[in-house]
């Protein structure tokens, strides 16, 4: 099923063209990796699709124009796991996860027992139920990221956007997180994530979209499109793509 269909997206910031005529499609169950150099427009594209930035072109989500959705309606379709950050006040993990229910309740109602159950279930699903009463700002980077993913699940949106989800995590936690993404996608969640690691894209996603200087370099099935030539063109680095007998592919730099 086609979830997001964006056509001819262009965006400029202070006369600098960031995105130029981008077409973007997202289907149910996809795990799509956005790759490209720093400043190529990955995060900008995410923010445009989230409705946080206004761009030229048309975006339809579930065959309705993005402008016709209210904040709340959009939040029920797309949730966002931002890059790691600090929280100013000492919120508990439950406080943070419950924020995912804000789109589901009215101005004069409070979180119901059902909302709290949804929050608990997502924490359980991610495997961090034990953190529930901990202070969010005192968690490790990996734990924070997991809690934010739990919040995205609590939001019960079809699509989850992640901005560099593994950045700042240690090696073990990076792989754990990717594995989790894979498992969640098998359960029917749809992901769009930006990443700096071709390896991670190869491991966790099925689709790729490569951005270079605000334009699409190439896109499509990850194994077909994330090739030696494309990576050379994106990062100016020589790599070798190796297939293992278990079917996975790996990207190794030639230095």
């Amino acid at each position, binding site marked *: 099923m086609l979830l997001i269909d964006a056509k001819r997206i262009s965006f400029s910031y202070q006369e600098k063209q960031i995105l130029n005529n981008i077409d973007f499609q997202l289907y149910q169950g996809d795990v799509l990796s956005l790759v490209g150099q720093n400043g190529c427009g990955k995060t900008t594209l995410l923010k445009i699709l989230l409705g946080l930035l206004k761009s030229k072109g048309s975006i339809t989500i579930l065959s309705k124009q993005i402008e016709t959705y209210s904040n709340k309606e959009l939040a029920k379709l797309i949730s966002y796991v*931002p890059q790691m950050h600090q929280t100013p006040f000492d919120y508990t993990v439950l406080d943070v996860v419950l924020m995912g229910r804000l789109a589901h309740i009215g101005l004069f109602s409070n979180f119901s027992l059902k909302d709290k159950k949804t929050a608990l279930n997502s924490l359980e699903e991610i495997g961090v139920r034990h953190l529930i009463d901990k202070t969010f700002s005192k968690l490790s980077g990996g734990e924070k990221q997991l809690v934010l993913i739990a919040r995205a699940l609590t939001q019960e949106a079809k699509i989850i956007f992640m901005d560099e989800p593994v950045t700042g995590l240690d090696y073990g936690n990076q792989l754990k997180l990717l594995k989790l993404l894979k498992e969640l996608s098998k359960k029917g969640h749809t992901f769009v994530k930006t990443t700096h690691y071709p390896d991670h894209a190869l491991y966790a996603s099925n689709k790729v979209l490569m951005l270079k200087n605000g334009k699409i370099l190439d896109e499509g099935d990850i194994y077909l499109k994330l090739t030696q030539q494309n990576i050379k063109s994106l990062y100016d680095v020589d790599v070798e793509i190796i297939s293992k007998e278990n079917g996975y592919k790996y990207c190794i730099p030639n230095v």
Partner: protein
Amino acid sequence: MFLIGLIHLSFFIGKYPISLNEYVQFLKYYFLNETTLTEDKIEVLNNIFFNVRFPRIITAVLIGASLGVAGSTFQAIFVNPLVSPGILGVLAGSSFGAALGLVLSLPWFGVQILTFVFGFCAVLLSITFLFISKRPKSTIILILGGIISSALFTSFLAILKYSSDPYDVLPTIVFWLMGTLSYSDKNTLALVFVPMVFGIVILSFSSKYLNALSLGDEEAKSLGVNVKYIKIYSIFFATLISSLTVVLAGVIGWIGLIIPHITRLLFGADNKIVVPLSAIIGGIFLLSSDMLSRSLFEYEIPIGILTSIVGIFMFIFVFIKAKQTIC
């Protein structure tokens, strides 16, 4: 619960001594129509209760609650625990308005109107800076606007003070700016009661959005929060109730800054709990400060002075207590 007990207690304390027995008898008379008190006594008590102490108690609780709620709301919106209700200039503007009214020797009602109007003017001025700046969404610019607006109205106030009659008007202005509950009367209270309670209730309900808001506008938006709308009406209602506190009792400092902290130390950082509880704790705080100010010395000390002193002790107490439970 504690607040209700305190309200009853504060009926006793004051210039005219009332014994527990008299209080009980009076309540009995009022609700059950039976009493052992004489007619004269009842009349005296009636007067003290409904014309003096009752409005004063309600005023104290209302002001404490308003400043607590406004303070915690502003702290969450500006993502800064050092922010107090005066951040956008509302207190400076209101002070100027009050002083202007006193200098012009307007009737008391006129002074109150000016107080309210200039409180809003000051906040509008600081918001104007957002629109003339190139970054209309920047919190820093808004705070800067607030500082500028505060400074402007503080200097205007200084001009007024400097040029006013030093034997008559100046002392009144100075006492008013120290904050006092002794002007509290039924009529003003009746006028501001509904908007203040309404503001407190609205801010308490919308406090659940403040957690998300404090993570930044974009994240809040992606969580389905209508950021612009919530910010505008939170600032509006926080300004409304803060300027009304000045209308009622002059500038009472410290509460708006310290009460949210005390609440967070006691009950955690979750704003949907902090904001409503700041109202209750603010009410308790100002009521107890007021009881002290009435009973410590022969004459009444301006409440603004006492809130600072009581606030410091209350804060130290909570700080020590919190250290034992949190760490």
